[in-house]
């Protein structure tokens, strides 16, 4: 059962369209698998929409620049309407295509949110396989990370945040067991050592390199940015 969900602040930012594509997609992937969050998102969206479109109605009684706004815009608006209704095109929604990706000989269905994102070539290191999702969000790196059975990521912290959404399989760390659908958001204060006994596939977003904290693994720090 899914136990880890995005905080409400994140859901709010998601609904407002204020999050980067990487995190928005992470929440959408989670919500596809989580009826509870789906419901929260639907309710909050309805509320935000209601507020957005009634606000000005209230403003009419409170502030007075509404007339100015409409008078400036009125000319353009008429043109805009004419322009828009001239077209008889309608957008036909194309049925979602299902895409899959293979790791270690196993085929995984890709969440439909990722359908139009560009995936780079897979790269391997030990039991980890990673493919970068090219969202071009500067320091934010988004990936699909596959861990073979028995694999894991050495104990580390993050300089920024690290989001993991479990797409398949399970893993565990010091805080417990995570299952398909879990939305795990960690920040610099969290230190963990995830291990996947039976293998897993994750959608990951991190805004900085991992920082390995223990013994010999410190030697891995130069490749911290490779994994996430």
């Amino acid at each position, binding site marked *: 059962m899914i136990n880890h969900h995005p905080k409400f602040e994140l859901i709010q930012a998601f*609904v*407002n*369209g204020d999050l980067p*594509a990487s995190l*928005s*997609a992470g929440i*959408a992937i989670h919500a596809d698998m989580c009826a509870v969050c789906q419901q929260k998102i*639907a309710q909050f*969206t*309805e509320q*935000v*929409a*209601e507020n*957005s*479109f*009634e*606000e*000005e*109605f*209230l403003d009419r*009684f*409170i502030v007075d620049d*509404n007339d100015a*706004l*409409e008078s400036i*815009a009125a000319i*353009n*608006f008429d043109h*805009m*309407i004419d*322009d*828009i*209704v001239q*077209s*008889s*095109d*309608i*957008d*036909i*929604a*194309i*049925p*979602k*295509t299902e895409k899959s990706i293979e790791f270690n000989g196993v085929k995984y269905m890709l969440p*439909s*949110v*990722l*359908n*139009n*994102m560009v995936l780079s070539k897979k790269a391997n290191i030990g039991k980890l396989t990673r493919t970068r999702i090219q*969202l*071009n*969000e*500067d320091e934010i790196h988004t990936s699909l990370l596959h861990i073979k059975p028995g694999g894991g990521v050495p104990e580390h912290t993050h300089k920024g945040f690290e989001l993991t959404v479990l797409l398949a399989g399970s893993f565990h760390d010091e805080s417990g067991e995570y299952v398909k659908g879990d939305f795990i958001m960690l920040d610099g204060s969290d230190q963990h050592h995830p291990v996947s006994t039976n293998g897993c596939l994750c959608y990951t977003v991190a805004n900085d390199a991992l920082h390995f904290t223990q013994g010999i693994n410190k030697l891995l720090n130069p490749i911290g940015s490779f994994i996430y």
Partner: protein
Amino acid sequence: MQTNLLSIATNAKSISMTDKINHPQLCQWLNSVAHTRDKQAFTHLFQFFAPKILRIARAKFPNEAQANEVVQDTMSNVWRKAHLFNQDKGAATTWVYTVMRNVTFDMLRKIQGNKEDNLSDDIWPVAENMSSEGETFDDHLENENLLSVIEALPQAQQDVVKGFYFREMSQEQLATHLRLPLGTVKSRLRLALGKLKVQLGEKHD
């Protein structure tokens, strides 16, 4: 609109939805646009939404031309996608908000990083379950019974029936559109019609 100044000014947050926005009216306009490409209804929608969208967009885009573009793009999408609105799934305001937020999101991504990948509709689908059909073409329907009977069909059969009868697509076009073999389209259509006959026979006696 049933409101009074006093209650709005003093107690805005506690007024229920329908008191502030005439939702049934918005739904009706949106459905008229969807069903009959009603320009008058669209003009009403435009007059209701456009100034508000402009105001919201100006808060997000300092550039006036960009804010105008949000209005233009959002309202053209409303015109072109109205048939994707399903009033059973939510309010018209919620649907238009989704369209506006998606336009804004894609534009911000474009401006900030020159990324024209238009991911928003994948993140926040404008149509439920990809089925663009919904109640779109119910002006072709005799009554709501037929629609409810069709909606009781398995999704795969619904897609074919709606495509064939409401969109007037050929079986070949449907096969391409739904990415199915022609034979599958034909057999689904046959199956669905068989069921419809039974259902409607029961209801129309």
